[in-house]
């Protein structure tokens, strides 16, 4: 075992290491580590003494006698409720003098809007401890951290690390990457819709409280955004998987991901004449956007297909493609759906006709649903409001007229919207149907609880109750990719980004069944390479789906949900040992089969002899996947893609499109490669 970093030792010493036994054994045997631990121990003792010298304020003794306090609160609550009823019953007239006993604080609460309180009375506010929300994502190894840090520094000079999680905030020191798109080409003025649009307040730059150490090159904080700047976009960098030596590790594990939003976002960006933010590029979502020619399983839930050939981009490496295809069902065989749409109608949704696109998308969807499906609609601006109680699609006119009447209003209180949407979904819950809340938003939260952890907690609680969440992203400036992805991930749902009506049609027609009906929950993939044949491996993408190898058979670990007919593709870049016969890799998939209601594991192996001799021997699907991955790799500035030219990518894209009989997606992809190449030059 190599000596751990000082930070790891400190983590061990302070009792925060998850797997301390091997480290402790090492430290006991290693003189250098033992000495370092001793130094750390002295530090900790000094800190302990200092901490005990810190003075803390005393918690004040309660003034009133205990029994009266709850009563007092209840009385105040009653007054507030009366006050609210008064306001609600006369929405247009300003309220008369507030009740005398209502304090200033109460009045403030009342003025914040009815939504929260009203919704709270319907749903129990989630209570309890946040579960280790992101435990699995924090288990990234050191090399990948190194990549991440290097890239972050190169990109902006910001001192970033992978500490913690935060989204939705737009302060300039957030480690979440922030991109400011340039002037938009041909800005179509939004149609004058309803009340004046309230734009989100400009981000408030705050100076760092602590000056950086003078010894080092001071990290330059990024230029604080000025109010007149175009709105910012928020992405989160998940790093880049490292190349792993099979002498050290032979196994790789990750949760499946069927989302495609990253590709659509890239397309939108390139079509506007801009390179996408490298941190928003998720390789797996680019690869999974395309349709491959893998057959659906004849029996069972999944078919696994493996194929390996020399990389068309690097003759020294091979590419292993793993194609997982979920079973298909006929549209008539799917369960009825109970959908609750939670639609962002805040001011920002008025930009670029975002809300209009949502409305058109919904009309598309309704045309494709069955009369026995049900739809409810909740909208939120500064607070949430019911628009349409759950209505069977048989009454299509009612639904369509409710959609037509949507207008933008106020600021963005996602929490309130979700809460109310879940209130609907809970009330109309039907265990025999598919229950799903669909959030349509540009992902900006600026009112109410904007803390993503708190939102995520609610979303996870509801997913555990059987109400899943899917997120549909709209809009470009001000867009919060990371929040939308995390919410869908936590809600056992899909995340798609819709940039135009064509994409909306695609999602609601081709992908509707898969989006609505889940066949496998917490699906994980584990690949075990044979060190006799494979020297190194690298997983392309799935960085934020990392699962620790030891957790593959831990069925409590949250992983990916896969819907009917979904197709998941994963690529590994391999360094093979010359002329070594035998097994190359074994791929195992483990998931909760929702039809059987039990955990199932299946596996498939590939022998060294089955590896194709030439890149030209690879199938059309293999070539398409390899090219889509390389496209993403270059766009995210992966160090492994430095040597690859755009001409090569373009040639491979053209060839893949031809071999696949020129489907629309692949033809469009060739055009995007050309655009990206022109912008990169």
């Amino acid at each position, binding site marked *: 075992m190599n000596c751990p970093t000082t930070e790891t030792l400190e983590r061990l010493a302070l009792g925060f290491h998850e797997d301390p036994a091997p480290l402790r054994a090492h430290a006991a045997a290693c003189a250098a580590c033992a000495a370092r631990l001793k*130094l750390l121990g002295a530090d900790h003792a000094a800190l302990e003494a200092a*901490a005990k010298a810190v003075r803390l*304020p005393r918690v004040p003794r309660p003034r009133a006698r205990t029994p009266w306090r709850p009563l007092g609160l209840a009385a105040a609550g009653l007054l507030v409720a009366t006050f609210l009823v008064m306001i609600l019953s006369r929405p247009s007239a300003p309220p008369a003098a507030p009740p005398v006993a209502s304090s200033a604080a109460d009045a403030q609460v009342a003025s914040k809007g009815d939504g929260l309180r009203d919704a709270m009375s319907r749903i129990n506010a989630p209570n309890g401890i*946040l579960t*280790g929300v992101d435990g699995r994502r924090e288990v990234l190894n050191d090399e990948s951290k190194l990549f991440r840090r290097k890239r972050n520094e190169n990109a902006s000079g910001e001192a970033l690390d992978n500490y913690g999680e935060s989204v939705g905030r737009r302060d300039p020191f957030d480690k979440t990457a922030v991109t400011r798109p340039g002037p938009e080409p041909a800005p179509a003025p939004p149609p004058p819709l309803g009340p004046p649009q309230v734009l989100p307040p400009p981000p408030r730059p705050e100076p760092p*409280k602590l*000056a950086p150490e003078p*010894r080092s090159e001071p990290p330059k904080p990024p230029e604080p955004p000025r109010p007149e700047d175009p709105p910012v976009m928020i992405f989160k960098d998940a790093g880049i998987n490292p190349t792993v030596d099979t002498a050290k590790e032979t196994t790789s594990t990750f949760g499946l991901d069927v989302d495609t939003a990253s590709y659509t976002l890239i397309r939108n960006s390139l079509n506007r004449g801009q390179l996408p933010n490298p941190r928003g590029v998720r390789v797996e979502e680019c690869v999974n956007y395309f349709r491959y020619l893998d057959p659906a399983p004849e029996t069972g839930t999944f078919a696994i297909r493996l194929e390996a050939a020399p990389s068309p981009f690097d003759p020294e490496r091979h590419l292993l493609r793993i194609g997982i295809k979920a079973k298909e069902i006929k549209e008539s065989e799917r369960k009825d759906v109970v959908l609750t749409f939670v639609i962002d109608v805040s001011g920002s949704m008025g930009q670029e006709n975002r809300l209009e696109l949502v409305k058109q998308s919904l009309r598309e969807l309704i045309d494709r649903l069955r009369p026995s499906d049900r739809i409810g609609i909740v909208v939120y601006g500064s607070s949430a409001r019911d628009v349409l109680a759950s209505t069977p699609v048989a009454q299509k006119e009612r639904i369509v007229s409710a959609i037509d009447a949507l207008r933008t209003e106020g600021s963005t209180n996602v929490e309130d919207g979700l809460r109310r949407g879940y209130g609907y979904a809970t009330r109309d819950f039907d265990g025999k149907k598919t229950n799903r809340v669909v959030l349509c938003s540009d992902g900006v939260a600026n009112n109410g609880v904007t803390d993503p952890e708190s939102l995520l907690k609610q979303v996870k609680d509801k997913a555990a109750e059987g109400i899943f969440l899917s997120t549909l992203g709209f809009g470009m400036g001000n867009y919060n990719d990371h929040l939308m992805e995390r919410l869908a991930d936590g809600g056992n749902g899909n995340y798609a980004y819709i940039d135009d009506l064509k994409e909306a049609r695609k999602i609601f027609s081709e992908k509707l069944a898969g989006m609505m009906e889940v066949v496998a929950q917490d699906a994980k993939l584990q690949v075990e390479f044979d060190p006799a044949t494979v020297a190194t491996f690298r997983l392309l993408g799935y960085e934020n789906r990392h699962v620790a190898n030891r957790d593959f058979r831990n069925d409590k670990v949250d992983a990916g949900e896969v819907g009917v007919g979904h197709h998941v593709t994963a690529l590994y870049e391999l360094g093979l040992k010359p002329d070594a016969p035998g097994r190359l890799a074994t791929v195992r998939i483990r998931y909760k089969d929702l039809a059987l209601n039990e955990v199932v594991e299946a596996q498939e192996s590939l022998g060294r002899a089955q590896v194709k001799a030439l890149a030209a021997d690879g199938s059309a699907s293999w070539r398409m996947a390899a090219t889509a991955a390389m496209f993403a790799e270059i766009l995210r500035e992966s160090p492994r893609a430095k040597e690859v030219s755009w001409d090569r990518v373009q040639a491979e894209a053209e060839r893949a499109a031809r071999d696949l009989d020129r489907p629309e997606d692949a033809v469009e992809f060739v055009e995007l490669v050309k655009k990206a190449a022109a912008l990169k030059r």
Partner: protein
Amino acid sequence: MEWESLARRYGDRVLLVVRSIVRDDAAALDVSQEVLLKIGRSLNGQAGVKNYDAWVLTVAGNAARDALRSRTRRREVAMEQDVVDERRPEGALLAQESRDRVARALETLPAGARDVLLLKFREGLSGPEIAQALGVSLAAAWQQLSRAMKLLRSKLTETP
């Protein structure tokens, strides 16, 4: 249990858990008072809780998060806005400083960083206990503590 003994036994610990989450002195004192009242009531009432100390931490953490959630005010996370030097001195840096200087540096840290350090070094909570109180995974709790240590160390080295 009498208020005094309740406050003496659990006051600091509850306050630190609550304050590390709400990060506001006045609000933390209010919430802590509620928590202590609740603990006092339960102590007299039911005896079903096995691990009492862990239960106190959970109650305090939940109350703090509820308070945070019910306030529509944006949560100010001063701690995460600080720029920290990633390099870490190898030697026993803190041990060379006087106790008062370390204590002063501690007191000037942002609320979240200061309180998580106090939970560890003043209250002597274990890693899992801190994670439970803060309602995050062990890894996330370590990130908070480690960030706080880095802040403290860089604070002590920045001025001679």
